[in-house]
């Protein structure tokens, strides 16, 4: 059976979903359920003392989903490490989606600080899933540092532009010895299918699910897109051709030539 294995843990779904920006917790839960996902990301923030909202966690069944805290908001390695430790202290398993994004405008990952934080967190026993630029050499450094996966970006977060870094992600997939999870920028099921057809091990989606009239249906669409891409990859895709190739036999039509 075709399974995704991260840090020795087995998953049957290859779609990770984020929990941000949903219009309601109900919409979020519906999306999670229809996505078939087994890993959901969450963020850490200060409690608003004056009106603390109800805990997100009460909506997420820990039996069903692995909670993957991210370090979003961290601008350098130190802040990322601090967030990861807080998340663990909150009772999560020691898994962390490492994000270090100094630029608040494009939210692109910092290769230097991400590697630095990864080295520290791995030493502290964390299972580290780093969000990273589509940079094959950096992917190798992270892998050597002991990260459980690499998570190259398809396009900047929330742009819905798809696998714009295609050539480089193909190289990462070819060279990686850990699962490659394409994260950020996947705005349509066709994008997730494309990533999987390329041989990615999984994809992570959030904005595209939150940013639609029907999160549940969109989540189901992404689920199918990911499965479609994976199955096509396993079955073996035909090569692109410049010349046409008839799908009907050309010979023997009703003429004599």
């Amino acid at each position: 059976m075709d399974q995704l294995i991260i840090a020795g843990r087995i998953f049957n779904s290859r779609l990770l979903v984020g929990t941000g920006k949903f219009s309601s917790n109900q919409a979020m839960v519906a999306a999670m359920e229809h996505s078939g996902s087994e890993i959901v990301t969450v963020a850490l923030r200060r409690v608003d003392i004056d009106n603390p909202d109800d805990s997100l966690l009460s909506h997420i069944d820990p039996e069903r989903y692995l909670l993957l805290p991210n370090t979003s908001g961290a601008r350098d390695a130190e802040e990322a490490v601090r967030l990861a430790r807080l998340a663990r202290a909150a009772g999560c398993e020691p898994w962390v989606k490492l994000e270090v994004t100094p630029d608040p405008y494009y939210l692109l990952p910092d290769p230097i600080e991400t590697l630095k934080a990864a080295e520290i967190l791995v030493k502290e026993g964390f299972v580290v899933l780093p969000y990273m630029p589509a940079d094959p050499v950096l992917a190798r450094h992270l892998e050597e540092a002991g990260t459980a996966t690499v998570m190259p970006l398809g396009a900047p977060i929330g742009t819905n532009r798809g696998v714009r870094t295609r050539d480089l992600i193909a190289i990462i997939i070819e060279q990686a010895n850990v699962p490659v999870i394409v994260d950020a920028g996947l705005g349509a099921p066709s994008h997730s299918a494309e990533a999987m057809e390329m041989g990615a091990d999984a994809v992570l989606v959030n904005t595209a699910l939150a940013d639609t009239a029907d999160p549940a249906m969109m989540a189901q669409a992404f689920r199918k897109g990911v499965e479609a891409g994976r199955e096509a990859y396993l079955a073996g895709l035909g090569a692109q051709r410049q010349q046409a190739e008839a799908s009907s036999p050309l010979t023997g039509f009703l003429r004599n030539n």
Partner: protein
Amino acid sequence: MKLIINGKTTEYQDNLTVQQLLQKLKLSPDQVVVELNRQILSPNIHVKTELKSEDTIELVQFVGGG
């Protein structure tokens, strides 16, 4: 007693433990993580941890994120 909680300074008349502070703020200890002067507190020591003036406390929780 002056406490800096999540960046804001607040005055409290009487002494408090972390547990008592959370009760005052109506926060359940299994929903928030407490950082006291940059040190993370595990829930089981909330009860015996006395706060003193000028303490800096961070109270954080999980929210939706990608």
